[in-house]
Every structure is written in structure tokens, then in C-alpha cells.
């Protein structure tokens, strides 16, 4: 995959609500096929950056470019179907079965029934869920980890080149979380998608990222590959590094 091509670009982007800035002057190039992790405390503007990419939000200043086209020039519906989206707890539709959840976007896109069926089965297998056992279940009949797997399968359904993930593993117990992080890391490398991943867990960031961007009050204060990241002198980087120190009580 060409790692030099730019999939997403923020050009001097600011976003505010009622003149209260949430994101300030962010410029960032995300290469095609990379996994960029947006790291930061709650309220640092990570999720807002994510939502600016698929035009759930529109910048108050500057512009976001996806595949060479400014988001405001994209048809919002087309843009979003071109981008997979995973949120905490999966955000699954509780009235749909697992299969209905996964096939939503391909169905909206008018894929043929047999092709949709095949796609759902192969995605469930990819996420280590046996279609025969899980396809007909409702989300409430799944564990948290299984729901999250279905959430990822749903996001991948129409084979979008870009995947946005908003703390997808945040609500899971530590053991399940570590399992899914490991599997997902391997999967991400294999699929070659451009992934923008939001988390407040520095361990997760270092594990999954090709680059980590650290956000403080809506600004990117550090941007580096995982092995370089902790060497940065910025106090917020050091605060996150301190959170990594093993301490009685286990994971953060």
C-alpha cells in the first residue's frame, strides 16, 4: 500500500460552539493505510476531530480534506458511507439482529442479496464470531466484547477505505480489552485501512498506533511514532508516560 498518499488532511482547522473553542488551529496529514491515534484527556477535542472527518461536524475555520476533496464539498451521506465508524459499546441497533446490523450499509448501498449475505458471514468470521451461532442474535444477547466485534464488522461491511474509531474498547473489562486490542492491531495491519483511533489510554495508543497525536485543549501538542512518543519533553506527554508506570491496581 502506498504510505505516502494522504487520506485525510486537516488544514488549519478550528471548531467552536458559541465562540467557545473546542478544536484550535489543527493541521495534520494522515497517510493512507496508517493508524493514527488521537490521544488526550476527556474534553481535549479528540472526538470532535473525529466527527469533523465524516462531516458530522463542519469546521468553523479551515478545512478537512478526505481523499482529495474538502468535506463540505462531499455529499455528507456518500462521505459517511465511504468511512466506517465504531463507537464505544458498538452503538448497535438493538432492534436489529447481528446480521441486520452488519449488513446495514451494504443494504443501503443496494448490494445484491447474495453478495450481502456472503459479506456478513465473512466479516463475522473475520471477527471470530461463528455466523451460524451469532447472526440471528440481538445485541442484548451478546457480551460486551462480542458487541464490539459486531460493531467493527458493521463498520467494515461496505469495505470503506477509512475507519474512525471512538474509544471502541473503552467499556470493556481489562482482559477482553487486551484481547481485542491484540486482535485488532493484527487485523488493522492486514486490512491496510486508514484508521483514526481515539483513546485516552496511552497503553492502547502505543500498542496500535503508527503515529500518536496528543491533544490538549483542542490543540495537537505532540505527534510522533510510538517509539519516539514518550521521549517528547512536553509536560502532557510526561503526564501520560507517568500513567504507564506500573502501579498497584493494574491498568489505568
Amino acid at each position, binding site marked *: 500500500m502506498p504510505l505516502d498518499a494522504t487520506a485525510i488532511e486537516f488544514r488549519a482547522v478550528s471548531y467552536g460552539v458559541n465562540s467557545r473553542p473546542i478544536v484550535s488551529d489543527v493541521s495534520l496529514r494522515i497517510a493512507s493505510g496508517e493508524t493514527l491515534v488521537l490521544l488526550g484527556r476527556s474534553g481535549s477535542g479528540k472526538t470532535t476531530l473525529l466527527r469533523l472527518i465524516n462531516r458530522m461536524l463542519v469546521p468553523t475555520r479551515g478545512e478537512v480534506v478526505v481523499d482529495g476533496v474538502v468535506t463540505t464539498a462531499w455529499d455528507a451521506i456518500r462521505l*459517511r458511507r465511504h468511512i466506517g*465508524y465504531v463507537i464505544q459499546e458498538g*452503538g*448497535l441497533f*438493538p432492534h436489529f439482529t447481528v446480521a441486520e446490523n452488519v449488513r446495514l450499509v451494504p443494504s443501503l448501498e443496494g448490494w445484491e442479496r447474495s453478495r450481502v449475505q456472503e459479506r456478513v458471514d465473512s466479516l463475522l468470521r473475520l471477527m471470530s464470531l461463528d455466523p451460524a451461532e451469532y447472526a440471528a442474535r440481538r445485541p442484548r444477547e451478546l457480551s460486551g466484547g462480542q458487541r464490539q466485534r459486531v460493531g467493527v464488522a458493521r463498520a467494515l461491511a461496505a469495505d470503506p477505505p477509512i475507519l474512525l474509531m471512538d474509544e471502541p474498547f473503552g467499556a470493556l473489562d481489562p482482559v477482553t480489552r487486551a484481547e481485542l486490542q491484540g486482535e485488532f492491531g493484527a487485523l488493522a495491519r492486514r486490512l491496510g485501512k486508514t484508521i483514526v483511533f481515539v483513546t485516552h489510554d496511552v497503553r492502547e495508543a502505543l500498542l496500535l498506533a503508527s503515529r500518536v497525536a496528543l491533544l490538549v485543549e483542542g490543540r495537537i501538542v505532540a505527534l510522533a511514532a510510538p517509539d519516539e512518543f514518550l521521549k517528547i519533553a512536553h509536560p502532557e506527554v510526561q503526564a501520560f508516560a507517568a500513567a504507564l508506570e506500573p502501579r498497584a491496581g493494574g491498568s489505568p
Partner: protein
Amino acid sequence: MTFWSFFADHRAEILAETLNHLALVAIAMVIAILIGVPLGMALVRRRALRAAALGIANVFQTIPSLALFGFLIPIPLIGGIGRRTAIVALVVYALLPILRNTYVGLAGVDPAVLEAAEAMGMTDRQILWRVRLPLSLSVILAGIRTATVITVGVATIAAAIGAGGLGSFIFRGVALVSNAVILAGAIPAALLALSADLALGWAERRLKVI
């Protein structure tokens, strides 16, 4: 005259008025649903309309039912003596619970689910029909259930303006000071309300998505 002998002597008449009563309620409910559900759907997206519509429906609900029937009689087109006026009054009463529950149900859908729907590229219309509406169906149905039970009761007053129904026995019984005649109207009305409540309650539980 005991209740049973009156009941036995007037079987056919009681059955006819029960059917008449049922028809009044059914027609009024269909109209109230056709107005209330779409209006409730419109309120989700229109903040300005919300307070006004719920407020007006609330005010109508506070008018004593006998007075409302009276008020409607002199109004042209919808007024007069008879069924049409009665149905208009019943619709007015049934509207609030349906409108309110439709709005509350649609507005109460888990924001995370709506966010996912939007992020996946569903249009507003698809989100409404395929996500919001199915997920709030049981709440909407609860409103319809409340409205139906209210309407069965209020419809007994329709007899006062010549619309017939089980209220005819109740008004006649009051005039004759006969409990037997009153009960001939009141018992079937109560049974109708109970069965509507049970049937719609069952449907409501069936449609519930947790």
C-alpha cells in the same frame, strides 16, 4: 327491576349500543392516531412547534368533557347534534396522550444509536423510519393505550349530544333513578375499556426492544 332482568329484556339494544360505542371509539382513535403520530414526529425536529402543540393539547385535556361536547354544538361544520360532534370531541381528548408519547418515545431513543446511524450514512428519513420509529413503538403504543381507555370512558358522555353509545343507558338510568339501567351501560363500557387495555398492553410488551 333487577339488573339481570333489564339486561335480559334489552339484550339486543345493549349489544347495538355497545357496537355503536365501539364504532365511536374506533373512528375517533383512528383519526387521533393519524393526527397525533405524524404531529409528534414533526415535533422532534421543530423545537418552536413543540411547546405550542403540547401546550394546546394540554389545555384541551383540561376542559371538562361534558362542557367540550356542549361547546362544539354551535360550531359550524364540526358541530351540531350527533356523532360527528362526538367524534371531534373524542379526538381532542385522545390527542394529547398520543402526541406526547410519540414525541417522548422518538426523542428518548439512545443518542449513541442515533449517532451510529448518522455516522453510517443513513439519511434523516431512514433514521426516522428504520431506527427512531421502531425503537419508540412501544412508547407510542402506550400512549395509544391510554388514549383508548380514556376515549371509551368519555364516549359515554357522547349520548348527551345524541350520538348514542352506552352512555344512553347511563343517562336514562340517571333520569329514571335506576341502578339497573345505569349498570346496563356502565358494565359493558368498563369491560370494553378493560379489554382494550389488556390487548394494547400485550401488544406494547411484544413491541418492546430492550
